[in-house]
């Protein structure tokens, strides 16, 4: 995603609170890809992902008044809206039916760390950049961040005690921070 900074996050938030459509267009250009990537990881269906992305951005626009800068970064808030919307979709009747038709490959429960569906979306350079991330570290981040798993689900999926999820997550993200900040 090209990073042509036109607005600072503060400016962007201010304009979006005023329902500035140009700022919204900028928001889309800068964050749609990242959010779409997350949705794709979760539903593994490009068309459906774009439908959810569309719904998410409309929701972001309509509920922008609810965004509180004190509660976190803009992207975190958008990410939560998007992920919740995606989880709602995946829990809906229609989606479950579709997932059944396509087989277990597309169901949530099978998106483990060594799942090929997850890796399919990894671009070459990211893979190289993140190659220092241990598989279980990448898994725990992806399960939480990209698959929307709860702590309990992660614990079950990875076969680790619930209490360990927190510390494992801490280590994994510390590693991620190191890598992304040293690029």
């Amino acid at each position, binding site marked *: 995603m090209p990073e042509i900074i036109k607005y600072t996050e503060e400016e962007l938030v201010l304009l979006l609170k005023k329902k500035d459509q140009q700022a919204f267009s900028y928001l889309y250009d800068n964050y749609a890809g990242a959010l779409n990537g*997350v949705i794709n990881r979760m539903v593994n269906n490009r068309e459906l992902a774009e439908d959810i992305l569309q719904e998410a951005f409309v929701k972001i626009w309509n509920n922008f008044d609810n965004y509180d800068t004190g509660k976190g*970064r803009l992207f975190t808030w958008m990410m939560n809206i998007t992920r919740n919307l995606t989880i709602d979709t995946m829990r809906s009747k229609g989606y479950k039916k579709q997932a059944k038709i396509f087989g277990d490959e597309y169901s949530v429960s099978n998106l483990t760390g060594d799942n090929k569906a997850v890796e399919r979306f990894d671009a070459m350079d990211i893979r190289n950049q993140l190659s220092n991330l241990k598989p279980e570290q990448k898994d725990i*981040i992806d399960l939480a961040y990209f698959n929307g798993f709860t702590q309990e689900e992660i614990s079950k999926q990875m076969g680790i005690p619930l209490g360990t999820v927190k510390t494992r997550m801490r280590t994994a993200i510390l590693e991620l921070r190191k890598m992304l900040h040293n690029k």
Partner: protein
Amino acid sequence: MNVKEIISSGILELYCMGLTSETETNEVRQWAAQYPEVAEEIKAIETSLENYAQQNAIIPSAPVKEKILSAINTTAPVVDMSKTGSAATKAVVKQVFPFWKNVAAASIILLLASLFFNYTFYNKSQLLSKELASTQTDLLKQKEITGAMKQDMGVMADRNAQPVSLNAMPDVADAAARIYWMKNSGEVYIDPSNLPAPPKGKQYQFWAIVDGVPESGGMINTDIEVNGKKVHIQKMKSFGRAQAFAVSLEDAGPEKPVPSKVIVMGKI
């Protein structure tokens, strides 16, 4: 928990990923407000996750943005519903009204223009149909005149027509008539246009003198007028042979057996 313990526990990471319970979330927010280091750490985690998501970005297809932008334009008033009812109503009116206002204005203008043209064209068409009717009447009259004149011309120009001039008798002031006698068929035509108008209660009778005896050739009509002009030439009874023709003035009524007062006469 002190700041270090909070940071190293991993709860902030879970918080940033939206995996904390409501209680935990409130706890973390309290710490963030209380300790700048915690807030700073949260920001760092958020940024790293944001970068991670950007690294895994999948650019959506082009129409998605268009769909979103058109969706927010149509749902814009819905947003204001959450504020106050009146604001929402205002927004709706603002969005929809100008369009319909323009449509209504355009409709009225078109209607007025249409009415104006209807009125103008109706008047014009009324005028034209009146003019057409009068023109047709004129044409009909002209045709009648032309027809009568053609008939006159036909009689005069016939190569078998022998003209006979009837001149006024000595005791008559000023009168004349002309006969066209068709030698082949015996038909007799008279042009009475130079006879004076008969006095009231009188009319002219036509005679042929055959072997010294006057025979009636019929009454002459001096009343028929076409378009203000007297019919010039009219057909009388046919005579195979005659030595002279005459016109007499008689009392109005049926033909008389003998002429009472001869006005004009002419020999063949």
